[in-house]
């Protein structure tokens, strides 16, 4: 992929059009890991800059065959109703601010789930123009689901570890 080439010297194009994440990482109060949710996990999905491959797999995870809903897992519309964020993709320019706003709107205690290689360490889009960082630069995720894209079984397994059923 021609856009994924790493180079020692940043090209003028990258200097002009990328903005590295400069604001500090969000501080979060110490979290009690997963199992306190007792079988009910509602997540707010935030796509900060993904190719939609992970979204397709997440949709499959909630669809009839894999059916994460039977374990009490679901997606909600408002971060205030959510127990945490389900983040996919690398952090692009325009989504840095909205991601921080969404984090600020969460009601503690929360879990942050990074779904897919892009959310975990940038994946194949790490060096692309328009990318300003990865999820770790903004907030440390509690749960990590690797894969490009992750298999719906893996997604369901990871989320069940959080929800406790």
């Amino acid at each position, binding site marked *: 992929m021609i856009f994924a080439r790493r180079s020692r010297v940043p090209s003028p194009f990258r200097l002009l059009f990328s903005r590295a994440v400069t604001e500090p990482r969000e501080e979060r109060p110490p979290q009690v890991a997963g199992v306190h949710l007792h079988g009910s996990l509602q997540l707010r999905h*935030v796509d900060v800059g993904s190719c939609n491959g992970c979204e397709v797999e997440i949709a499959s995870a909630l669809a009839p065959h894999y059916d994460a809903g039977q374990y009490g897992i679901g997606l909600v519309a*408002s*971060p*205030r109703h959510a127990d945490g964020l389900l983040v996919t993709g690398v952090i692009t320019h325009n989504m840095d*601010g*909205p991601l921080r*706003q*969404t984090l*600020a*709107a969460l009601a503690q205690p929360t879990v942050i789930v990074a779904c897919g290689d892009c959310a975990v360490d940038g994946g194949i889009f790490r060096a692309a123009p328009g990318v300003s960082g990865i999820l770790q630069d903004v907030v440390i995720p509690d749960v990590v689901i690797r894969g490009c894209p992750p298999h719906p079984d893996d997604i369901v397994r990871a989320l069940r570890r959080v929800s406790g059923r």
Partner: protein
Amino acid sequence: MGLLGLAAGFCAVAAMAAAFLARRARVVVSSSLGALGCLLAGASALVTLITGTTSTFYTSHLLPGAGLSLTLDPLGAIFILATSLVGVAACVYCVSYAHGPMASRAAMTLFMVFVLTLLVVPAASNVVSFMFVWELMALSSLLLILTDQSRNDDSRSAALWYGVMTQLGAASILLGLLLASRGSASTFSAISAHAAQLSPNVRSFAFVLVLLGFSSKAGAVPLHVWLPKAHPAAPSPVSALMSGSMVAMGVYGIIRVGQGLLHGGTVWWWVAVVTLGVVSAFYGALHSTTSTDLKRLLAYSTIDIQGLVLIGVGAAGVLGDSGQPFIAHLAMMAALMLVVAHAGFKGALFLSAGAVERATGTRDLDRLGGLIHTMPVTAFVVAISACSIMAVPTLSGFSSEWLLLQGLLHGFNDSSTPAMIVMLLGVISLALTGGLTAVAFVKAFGIGFLGQPRSTGAAQAIEVPPTMKIAMLWLVLPSVVLGLVPGEFVGLVNRAASSALGKTSLEPLDHGTGLVLAQLRGAVQPAELFMGVVGVLLLVSAANRLLEQRRARRVDAWGGGRDVQTARMQYTATSFAEPLQRVFADVLRPDTDVEVTHIAESRYYEQSLMYDNRVNDVLEQRGYRPVINLVLRAGRLAQRLQNGSIHRYLAFGFVALLVILVVLA
């Protein structure tokens, strides 16, 4: 009667004080005297309602011709009670509110005269005194509308419409009363005794004339057009009195003439009254939903509630004629209780609207918001009064509407066709207006007081002075008391209804604190319901404490991840009502105007777009304005007769004289 006379005396002294005192003392002294007068009048009304007696007063000195004759009976007393409730509040409110044009000699004197006439109209008992006091009431309120002309010529146009319509109405009433008093003395008791000897056609014609005049005053559609103009244009205490008690005088007139003087008449009279009520209720509720001016919203809501009152009065008439006196009594009681409840909550709302206008500089709901933080007392008053209008249980609006619903429901027992149609129409109307009223007042309170301020005026509002607060809180009392313990007042309202319908031995409601229908197996105990609701609220609060939650954290509102939600992004009053405006577009006929300016180079690109959407009163636009234009055209045609030549005018005089001589010969 003595107390009422004393009250009238106090108001007259208040008027003179307003006319002669210097500015500093003028407002305080006349307002206090006026408030005292209203209190005394309220006391006299209560005494009359409790004892059920009628007292009279006559003097031939104050008025020419038949003299001034006053009779205070329970029917008049209940209207005087409603007036005194609002009058006390309006006078106390005036103490801080009146400055500038409102504190002038003319304005304060007229205000006191207005209060005085409102207290005396329900007691006037011959044609001369009734018309005199009625006209005085109309004139003083007309001049009061013109008090504050600083803003624009809204006031002048409003005063013109009000003046013309009220004068036409007064002429109609006078004609009707004269017709009814043919062949007898002009006192109401003489007319009443003589009414059986008039032919039915004469009686019906008299009733129709009187109905035209009084229903226009009561704000019945289609004669309501002056109301949404006049009530916003007048100063707030005047609006409160106009809306809380002057429109009730229209209803008083219909009851007094229709039932008292003409003894019920035929069924179709009251079917006409119910039809007026049904149309007014729906039209008023719909327009209040789409009004963005706070006072205009309240004015249309007055039309709505008076429509419901007319439904009650009409149902009482229809059922009385068809031989169901028990339920007729119940319907009349419901209508009268609604009159008193309306005086309470509408007065409070108008005074609060005045407070909001004073504090923020605007009445436009699209520019208000966030006032609950800066004006908590006003917000509380508006909240309670709005809940009362929306018929939230345990408040006065619910008690009155429940009684009205029971009256209509049991009216179905009567199997005559007019009764069935009337009850069905009434029920449908009540059902339609309930939801629309809720939308209107959620809009008024939610957009006006909650959320973020939509203009600098709203952001910089400060709470009003203590006398204005006391006046507004005083009017919250009727909503709460009539709502929680309506049973205590059932006896009073019963006597008023008996006096209205002329039957004294019926008691549709049992005694107690709640409303219990005798024999008809229906009851509601608002006090117990209230205790239940409060009990649950206390339990929930206690549970909250027990859970040891941290205090709530203040955060920015969630705006979908965009930048912080600004005040401009909120829903406005226009947008809140827009779905209903679309649904009822055929009835409302909004005027939509879109103006597009294209760039010079091409018609495919727009430079600017202007969108104007306003809901005007459709009856005014399509009904009245063509008639007015016709009259103006006829006037211009007639102008051609006046060309300035004295020869022509002499010729006209000569021809007229010839015609008269020929006719007399």
